[in-house]
């Protein structure tokens, strides 16, 4: 490869072998559900001369910042690579140096410069009661900000339950009239579901966009099929216990120690679409069921009301 400011040369300079780089591309490709033939194409996405990295504007509404934090945990690629070599994070309140007026100027300059071309990532729900007055930034409501900026994006990617479907604040009695961005604005959004989502699903979506120039196939809730096409139940390593009717009935029991099925203590796996058992979290370390706790159904709309009480079986 020629010398230049490309991603591959930079990681090579840091001692990442070509082998490791291809392993990473293979992992990402497999997670995205693409065939092995696409591995080299994914590699090219990251190796492409970065004369212009794709612009991303990240908006925070009514949220807990868990989705930003989840993204910070990415190891494929590392977050520093994502920020310095792959994307251009034009606006992100959690990490940006500028504040106040300078931050707002940067937001408007980025929207203007990349009109129609930026990916708008939304984290957090939009309030609709009292003219959206329960949530403001820079003196304007989230509703106003979303209405101004989202329509100017090439695509709106909602990361997490709050921006996708309303999230925790939309749980009954929903005092602020909180809604997902798509519903609040009446637009189509791609919804990376989960509370928070596995960053692999978010990064996979972005890579799909960089590779194909469009967003991946989604289900009727706007969730990418490569991650949300199957239920937890259908991918669960404890499934044979379910089939054999071997259940945990109380935490701390011998059955719990034997890793039996958590259905009877409230597992929502059968009704939840996500890839947690397969992708696992934090570099494949674990996931709730492996940690002995039932699935909450956190990638399903309104799970706070529909999946509760969490410890009563379905």
């Amino acid at each position: 490869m020629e010398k230049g400011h490309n991603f591959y040369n930079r990681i090579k300079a840091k001692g990442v072998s070509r082998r490791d780089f291809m392993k990473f591309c293979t992992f990402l490709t497999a997670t995205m559900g693409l065939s092995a033939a696409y591995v080299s194409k994914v590699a090219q996405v990251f190796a492409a001369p970065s004369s212009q990295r794709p612009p991303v504007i990240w908006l925070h509404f009514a949220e807990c910042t868990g989705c930003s934090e989840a993204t910070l945990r990415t190891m494929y690629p590392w977050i520093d690579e994502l920020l310095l070599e792959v994307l251009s994070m034009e606006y992100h309140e959690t990490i940006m140096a500028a504040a106040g007026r300078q931050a707002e100027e940067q937001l408007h300059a980025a929207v203007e410069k990349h009109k129609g071309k930026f990916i708008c990532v939304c984290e957090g729900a939009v309030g609709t009661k009292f003219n959206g007055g329960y949530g403001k930034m820079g003196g304007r409501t989230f509703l106003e900000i979303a209405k101004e900026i989202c329509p100017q994006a090439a695509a709106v990617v909602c990361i997490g339950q709050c921006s996708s479907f309303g999230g925790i604040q939309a749980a009954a009695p929903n005092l602020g009239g909180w809604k997902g961005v798509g519903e609040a604005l009446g637009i189509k959004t791609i919804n990376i579901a989960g509370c928070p989502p596995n960053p692999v699903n978010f990064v996979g979506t972005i890579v799909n966009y960089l590779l194909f120039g469009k967003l991946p196939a989604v289900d009727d809730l706007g969730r990418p099929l490569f991650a949300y096409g199957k239920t937890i139940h259908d991918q669960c390593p404890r499934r044979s216990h379910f089939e054999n009717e071997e259940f945990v009935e109380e935490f701390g029991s011998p059955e719990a120690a034997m890793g039996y099925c958590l259905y009877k203590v409230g597992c929502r796996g059968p009704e939840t679409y996500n890839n947690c058992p397969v992708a696992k979290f934090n570099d494949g370390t674990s996931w709730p069921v492996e940690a002995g706790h039932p699935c909450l159904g956190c990638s399903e709309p309104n799970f706070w009301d529909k999946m509760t009480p969490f410890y009563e079986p379905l």
Partner: protein
Amino acid sequence: MGKRITIDPITRIEGHLRIEVEVEGGKVVNAWSSGTLFRGIEVILQGRDPRDAHHFVQRSCGVCTYVHALASVRAVDDAVGIKVPANARLIRNLLNGAQYQHDHIVHFYHLHALDWVDIVSALKADPAKTAALADNTSNAPWGGRQYFKNVQVRLQTFVDSGQLGPFANAYWGHSAYQLPPEANLMAAAHYIEALRMQAKAARMHAIFGGKNPHPQSLVVGGVTSVADLTPDRIAEFLYITKETQDFVKNVYIPDLLAVASFYKEWGGIGGCTNFLTYGEFPSSEQEPESFYIPRGIIRKRDLGKIEMVDQQKVTEDVTRSWYVKSEPKHPFEGETRPIEENPQYDPDKGQYSWAKAPRYDGLPCEVGPLARVLVAYAKGHAEIKAGVESTLKQLDIPASALFSTLGRTAARGLEAVAIGEAMQGWVTELVENLKNGDTRTYQPYEMPESASGVGLNDVPRGALGHWIRIEDGKIGNYQYVVPSTWNLGPRDGAGNLSPVEEALIGTPVADPQKPLEVLRTVHSFDPCLACAIHVIDPHSNEVYKIKVV
């Protein structure tokens, strides 16, 4: 009449914060802190299953992940009347300790550092001189001329692209930046290393908690992660603890001291008056006696007099907050409701924040690392005392410098070291229990029809209390008073400024168009506004007597 400056949004925090200051003669003479988002989690909890509460409240914050879940299960454990088995207590402590480590590393590098470190100046540094500086100040495992040259090239490439991303339109070149280019390059390199370290450190939560953010292995009665009590899994956890602790001792602390040495005048800026900590990390069922970090209150900076905490003296005042008027009430009393309209911002005479104003005996109190370090220091805590004395000596500053932005920032690092060391002891204890055949992680219980409970905790940002009342087996009333509410709330009805408002008075502002100095103090509190504003107290006419602790 001074000049009013508004900073909204405050960035590099969690949540939505607006800070307004009045500057006269180049210094801040008045300040107002305003939380601009209200979600309503306490109301949402009413009528729900008490066992579910910790999942809901954990979503108060994804930066302060885990801590609300911990406080919640402790409050419900208390209501139900059980003590969790030793292994569960240890695992809960380990997850809390891991959160401290992770949170403080990310705070120093990714939320606070850019107030002190000029990234653009790093491009002018001499890599060889940077390597020499690093050799002298840091024990980081990476270094050398080529290493720093590579970092510089990477940053230069980034800047040359014209797409400055998170570094765009900031305060580079501001006169208040005082580090030489080599120190800026060293800090920038470590900023990048810390971005990777935090992802690795988060695996501690994933081992005993299934995932991070929002670990999912706590339950009322204990923890569920029984499959992770194997030698290899515990060894994995220990390995990451040690790696993280190495980073804290060899990179974070040296960087903290190196940067602080150029900003010693900040030992006289940004101080508060009263300090509160509930204490944390129980080493037995005796609370608070067995806490590794002790409980206590300091009034008027008097380290000679540490008071015991009487949590009946905690009240929340809503006079200057967007709620229906009410007298200040203890968390379990009274009736408060958010105003049902688009709020009008009136810092001069009226309501100006969604945060309430917690007070102890009517006094505003700083909570967080500095409060913990001061109480521990005053009580003769061996590790904290040694850390404080070594820091004061190395920086050649007096003890009075602790009551400041610099003191607060240094305290955050010091406690990270102490807690990291303690964590390794807790792992050893866990292993000993398992070797001795005690594998219990859960205490079975019956949910009472009616009961009340409280969990007092100290988490990375400060003192955290959760109160629950159970009625007909459901949540009748749930209240939490959170560190950032203490630190970043508004004035109270008596006119007392909140800690951040008091701390900002006297801050020099060289250029009102670029209030970098204001950000330094605000960030030193490690604000989390999603935590600070979780919302209204549910309607209650009953007076509840909290046990005096």
